[in-house]
């Protein structure tokens, strides 16, 4: 299946759900859907476009909104599904029911962006330490790292 055919098929299958559909490079297809259409779109990709393989999920902080990109790959193309939701309401549905291999990526997004992934089978923190302060989300653009003052035990006061 060539890129043009995939784009046409996607346009037909997704219909109104596809807000944006582009093909910027060879075997690279970007589709934008609303958060509520995410699960049906992923189910469609998995069942009809041979995209059972989720490469990863990227999160982007766009100022007043978060954008998540679900990078799928089939043997013929790399389909990237993107969705955007406002920062004031940082929650999105988990896709683990459809793609069981997504659990680690979704846990990482929860840690790094402070987005609540609803319905995650295992919502514990993944990469941040246990004593990490609450409400600190490192990959948000407004988060800056400040090196804590080094205190030498028993050293000069």
């Amino acid at each position: 299946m060539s890129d043009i055919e995939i784009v046409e098929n996607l346009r037909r299958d997704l219909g109104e759900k596809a807000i944006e559909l582009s093909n910027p490079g060879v075997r690279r297809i970007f589709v934008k859907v609303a958060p509520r259409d995410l699960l049906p779109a992923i189910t469609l990709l998995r069942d009809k476009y041979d995209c059972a393989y989720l490469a990863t999920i990227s999160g982007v902080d766009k100022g007043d909104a978060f954008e998540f990109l679900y990078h799928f790959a089939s043997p013929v193309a790399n389909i990237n599904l993107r969705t955007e939701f406002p920062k004031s309401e940082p929650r999105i549905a988990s896709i683990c029911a459809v793609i069981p291999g997504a659990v680690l990526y979704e846990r990482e997004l929860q840690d790094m962006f402070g987005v609540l992934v609803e319905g995650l089978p295992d919502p514990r923190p993944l990469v941040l330490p246990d004593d990490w302060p609450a409400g600190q989300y490192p990959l948000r653009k407004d988060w800056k790292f400040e090196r804590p003052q080094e205190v030498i035990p028993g050293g000069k006061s």
Partner: protein
Amino acid sequence: MNFKIPIGPQHPALKEPISLRMTVEGEVITDVDMRLGYNHRGLEKLAEDRNWIQNIYLTERICGICSHSHATCYVQGVEKLMELAPPRRGLYIRYLVSELERIHSHLLWLGVAGHEAGFDSFFMYTWRDREVVMDLLEMISGNRVHYAINTIGGVRRDLDAGQIAKIREGIVTLRKRSEYYFYIGANEPSFVARIAGVGFLSKENAVALCAVGPVARASGVARDVRKDDPWAVYDEIDFEVATADSCDVLGRVVVRVKELLESYKICEQLLKSLPAGDIAVKAPRKAKPGEVVSRYEAPRGENIHYIKANGTDKPERLKVRAPTLANYPATVEMLRKGFIADIPLIFAAIDPCICCAERTVTLIAAGSGEESVVRMSDLRRRAIARHQNAPVKRNAVWPL
């Protein structure tokens, strides 16, 4: 009664900080919990503060074994963003180094697999031969680990006729040795008996859990980015995707040895048709706003970088997914129903390594979560008592 055995994050024999908590019933693992993040360096955040050139060297330091993979994945993405077309010769040299890196990584892994299976002469042979390819890499780039050969728009060092002849010679030696390993791997009965049927991962699970690289290919999923998404030179090269359908550690050994042989083939083709000309073009300092998904087949599986530019000399976002992370859910599945003695072998088979059984263990009563450190002698006494009273391994299931 079941116990939880924690392995790591700090362990005398553990090369990487990861924590595995095994719930065991007798010798059989019933559940596995994995905790990550002990080595998290905040690299994606750091990349947003560095310019395009600095980030090459930053991404190179993600991993020590497949340093070139991350740098190449990043560089080929940035080239697409900047709409650069690197010269053919530069590309050929870049992917020649990629294949040499795959060879050194797979030889290293074969040695580790031999070591974990108790076949130490195999380990010493493969690591001796790995020095051949390490010397070649040092000759090409000047470094054994971080080759630093990539730059945006091409590579930084050219090859001369003498170096090409040396690489050819080295590949002849390595191919002879690898064929011998292939023979040994398939014919040494004790080695085969140790690794066959261990760490079973069905094809359905490999697909569902998004496994990548040799782990997926050993379960019969022919997923190789070099074939599925051929970029740069790979559409001009003739090679096969190595697969196996035994779905166990034996399959993973076979896949990696086959891939070694394919990599020699690729190297020879690249050297044979090495075009003349420049090795790099000048890159602009800034990239236009845009985004790109760059994929690369690292020795351990698919490497994917998502790069977003905002028009400045720094990336807006750099997302890196290394292949090992993708293989963790599959590893949990492999360890389940396996034996404690197989943990090092199964875990090593995805390519990070952890080995040996515990000397002193912390026992956590599975119900209450209470921890107590026991001495080996106590543990032994308890084990004897348990085995005297309990029917031995009644619910042990051989993984096959």
